[in-house]
């Protein structure tokens, strides 16, 4: 391995990523409805049935509750895919609501923070109260 090989590799990487952007564009995050998210979560968690939930105003972050045991899942758009976290005790480090914005701090190396803009201040305060129980 020499510097020429490394430089060539980096140029190759840049070209392929550029071609990828040209052919496919940049993924637009969109989570869809709570019901469709419920179907997606149920694929990973057998028996999951979406109960109450809320998709943020940007369509990229959502909170979905399991109808069976009220477990709350955070779902976040990630490129053209999504990531999902079960918000259990020990995972949630802090929750705060400021106006429409609900902010979460998580014990998670790649998802330490999540912000979700809700449609009303009352909704943000309601979710803050529900999630604070997990952070206690």
């Amino acid at each position, binding site marked *: *391995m020499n510097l020429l*090989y*490394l430089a060539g*590799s*980096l140029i*190759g*990487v840049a070209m*392929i*990523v550029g*071609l*990828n*952007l040209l*052919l*496919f564009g*940049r*993924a637009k995050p969109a989570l869809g409805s709570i019901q469709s998210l419920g179907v997606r979560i149920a*694929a*990973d968690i*057998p*028996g999951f049935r979406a109960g109450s939930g809320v998709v943020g105003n940007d369509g990229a972050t959502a909170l979905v509750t399991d109808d069976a045991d009220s477990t709350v899942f955070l779902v*976040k758009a*990630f*490129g*053209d*895919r999504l*990531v*999902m*976290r079960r918000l259990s005790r020990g995972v949630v480090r802090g929750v705060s609501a400021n106006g429409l914005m609900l902010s979460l701090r998580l014990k*998670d*190396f*790649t*998802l330490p923070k999540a912000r979700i803009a809700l449609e009303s201040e009352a909704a943000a305060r309601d979710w803050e109260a529900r999630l604070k129980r997990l952070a206690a």
Partner: protein
Amino acid sequence: MHWPTPTELATPAFIVLVIVEMLVARYLHRGEYEARDTATSLMMGFGSAITGALFAFIFIAFAGFVWKFRLITIGWSWAALVVCFVLDDLAYYWWHRASHRVRWLWADHVQHHSSQHYNLSTALRQPWTGFLTPGLVFRAPLFLIGFPLPMVVFVHGVNLVYQFWIHTEAIDRFPRWFETVMNTPSHHRVHHAVNARYLDANYAGVFIIWDRMFGSFVAETKDDPPRYGIVGNLASYNPLKVVLHGWVSLAGDLASARSPRDAALYLFAPPGWSPDGSRDTSDKIKARWAAFRTAQSPAE
């Protein structure tokens, strides 16, 4: 004898094939690409080549030490090369199986599985931290038998080149005889899937017969298309976070271990093990899925 480096020789072909697969995905809708995911995978491959070269001396020293205790001295011949290739693939199978079932090894190998996409760029998403694991002991038997280091390195390179092309959704299935003997895109899609039925399956490198022999083979089924990634997918495209996340998680658990036994189990038990059983291992996920299926269709 000078042995070529198969992965370096194949690099131009890798680039061409990624571009071809991208065009197939775009215009024939067979496969999916996302630019940031692709960038992460390719940079992981780049970094892996560098760390591999920097820490190769560990493998060379280990191989040289073990080779002193060899049973016989094996010279160059086509027969020796073929036998070495097959035995190296068997060693790869057990290393790979252990890498999914032992947290210490998983902390490194998880980097390869961290993409939610499955395409040829995913093949290049290689770990950077193999030198932090005891993975090289799986090759010790080859040196103890007496295969020389350059031959082992060469056949392993060929093995890795073979594994490149099976990371694709563009190819469905091959004729039955080929699918029976060889690792194929269909078998390896199963390996990268997080669907409960597919977890911890198809560890083969080149020959899928190892999975059939050792009970880890699962066939891909049309009614359960693979979903790729890991249990608890990453929310970052940053290659450094991809590299570190498994190690940060393991270090946190080791730091919080309440006894040497717990620490040892955090290192050697399957990923997801915890002292209170509150986390999910793949065995628990599969058992829960099987129980759910049984409850849904008790007549089956």
